[in-house]
Structure formats: C-alpha cells, structure tokens
C-alpha cells in the first residue's frame, strides 16, 4: 500500500473536496500529506494529464483541467452547482463588490443561502460594507475556471455575455 496511491484513490472517489482531517482518518498524517499533495499536483501539471488538483477553502479535489472541461462535461450527469448558486457566482464575478442586498434583488430571498454556500466552498468572499456586505470572487474561483486572477473574470464575462449594463 502506498500513501500516495491512497490519497489519489480518495480524491478520485470523492465528489466533495477533502480536508486534511479526511486524509488523517485514512491514516495519512498531515506532515506527510503536504508533500504527497505537492507531488501529485506536480505530476498533474504535465501537458499529458487531463486533470488537476484544486485547492480551495473547503479542501482539495481533483477536477478536469478547465481547458478540457467543455469537451467532456456532457459525460457527467450531475452538475457541481445548482442554478441559483451559479447565478450568484456569476453576479459576483461580473460585478466585483456587488452588495448582498443587490444580489437578493436579482436572485431572490434564497440568495443568502447561496452566498453562504459559495463562501463555504471558498469561491466567494464577503466584506462588510455599512449595513450590508459586498461580494468578491476569490483566487480559488480563478483556479476553478482556469483564469489568471479573479479580476480577469469580469472582463471575460462582459466580453462573452454582451450585456447592457443592467445592474
């Protein structure tokens, strides 16, 4: 049994991100885990590999490299995010600093839940602003979509969406 193989098997099997505690329960202590994940991540960097190791606030997960996602995503029946979640994420990316109350106006009351979930996943962070909160997409968001930085999201979305400024 190899610890590296075990880590890979666990990441492959799980559909949610795995935390260091998860790996500890599998018998891989933290000090060795870090090195293993680094190695794994390096292996995956090769141009011959189609998957990548994503690290977010909620943990580690394997995912298809963004450049291959569009070609193969029709093969998986389950989507990573529901419609509501996705809408809130899109708004935060398109309008960095959008207030929570504006999101609620657009998406409806469930927005609060969505924001909480996106924060837990590490894709969005909120900052206090007066009586409400502002939303921003994170570094992990950029990694997820294969962007260089969170700021790039706004540009890509406005180019692609061709929206009149409606917010």
């Amino acid at each position, binding site marked *: 049994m190899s610890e590296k193989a075990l880590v890979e098997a666990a990441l492959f099997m799980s*559909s949610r991100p795995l935390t260091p505690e998860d790996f500890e329960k599998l018998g891989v202590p933290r000090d060795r885990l870090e090195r293993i994940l680094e190695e794994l991540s390096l292996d995956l960097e090769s141009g011959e590999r189609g998957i990548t190791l994503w690290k977010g606030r909620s943990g580690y997960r394997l995912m298809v490299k963004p450049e291959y996602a569009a070609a193969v995503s029709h093969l998986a029946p389950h*989507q990573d995010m529901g419609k509501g979640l996705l*809408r*809130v994420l899109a708004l935060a990316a398109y309008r960095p600093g959008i207030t929570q109350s504006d999101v609620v*106006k*657009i998406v409806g009351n469930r927005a609060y839940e969505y924001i909480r979930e996106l924060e837990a996943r590490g894709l969005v962070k909120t900052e206090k602003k007066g009586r409400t909160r502002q939303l921003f997409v994170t570094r992990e968001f950029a990694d997820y979509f294969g962007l260089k930085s969170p700021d790039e999201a706004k540009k890509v*979305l406005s180019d692609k969406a061709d929206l009149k400024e409606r917010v």
Partner: protein
Amino acid sequence: MDDDKILALLVNEPSWEDVILKIVVDEGMDPWDIDICRLADRFLEFIKKAEEFDLRLPARFVLVAAILLRMKSDAIAEKEERILIPESPENPEESELLRELASIPPVSPPVKRIPVRTISLDELVLALKKAFEVKERRERRRVRRIRVEEVVGEEEDITRRINDLTERIKKVLEELESERVGFSRLVSEWRREEIVSTFLPLLHLSQEGKVSLEQEELFEEIFVILREKI
C-alpha cells in the same frame, strides 16, 4: 415544551430550510416529540397578537408543519415496511412463489463514484444572463400582479378546470399504459402559475376521492392514481 423555540425559529430564520435544519440538527429535537396541533394553536395566538401581518409567515408555518408531519409518517412507514403476500387458497403454488420472491432483499449497489460536472465559463455566462432575465421577469410580474388582483374578482370556473384536468389525466394514463402518472407530466409548462393552476384542481379531485396522491420523497414527484372511473 420547545414550542417557543420553534416559533422563534419560524419568525426569525431566513428560510424554511433553516427552520427545519435548526429544529432537527441544531436543537436536536426529535420530530416525534413535536405536537403539531399544539404548535398550530400557539402559532395562531402569536399571529393574532402580532402587530404586523406578514403573509409569508403562515405560509411558512404550514410548510414546516407539513414537513414535520411527513417526517413522523416516514418514521412509522419505515417500521412497517414489510411486504405481505396474502394466502391465496385457489392457487397455493403462486402465493408460495410470490412469498419466496418477496423475501429477496434489495441488491446492494456497488460503491460507485459519482463524477460531477465542473462548471465552464460559458455556463457561468449563461447563468449571468439568466439572472438578469429572471430579475426583469420578476419586475414585470409585479406590475402584472396588480392587474391579476382586479381580474380574480370574477371567480374562475373551478369546475371547468377540474373537468379539464380529469380528461388530461385519463389521456396521459392511456398514453402511458400505466395506472399512475407523475404530476409533472400533467403540467404543460413548468412555470409557477401553470403549476398552481394544475395543482389546485388536483387537490379538489383528491378531496372528492377521485384520485389518490402519493409522494415518495418530499419535494420529489407527486404521483396521481385514478381511483374510480370518472
């Protein structure tokens, strides 16, 4: 005993999902221990005393109470889930066989990884467009609602709607060659208005005992079974 706590949750939590979550997970209450009748009385008192009347609150109460009731009945159903094959004196061999088959336990599925589709940038763009569309629709609806309120005065002919629905159920059942049909197949377009205007006459049919309704999982499909030839 915990009625006050539940009432407070009902009033203060942002969504009904949170209410249920807090009741069951955070407060660790067993749905069995919640007296829904007593809770309803307390809620009525509370509403009468409240200075402002928020229409969403009673709606949320009804939903939460229904979910609690469902949890209770699921608990009972689980205990009684045993298949009984009646003895048939005319055909003992057949009932013997059926009993044998009924004793087969469900197969246990192999451990299967569930791959999830990661979201692509294009999907994010679509979601953004959709968000704005929905916002605009909501604004239009607000205007329309005022008009609807004027119209609703001329009572809509519920009898006609019930008859239409009955016809539709019969037709779909014939097409499916089945004894039951999912509610979603009866709704021509999956929009809120359409759903409500199909569901209302369905409730009437159920009340009259002409159909029975089954829902295996909460929030999942509701199945309609025709109870008599209509």
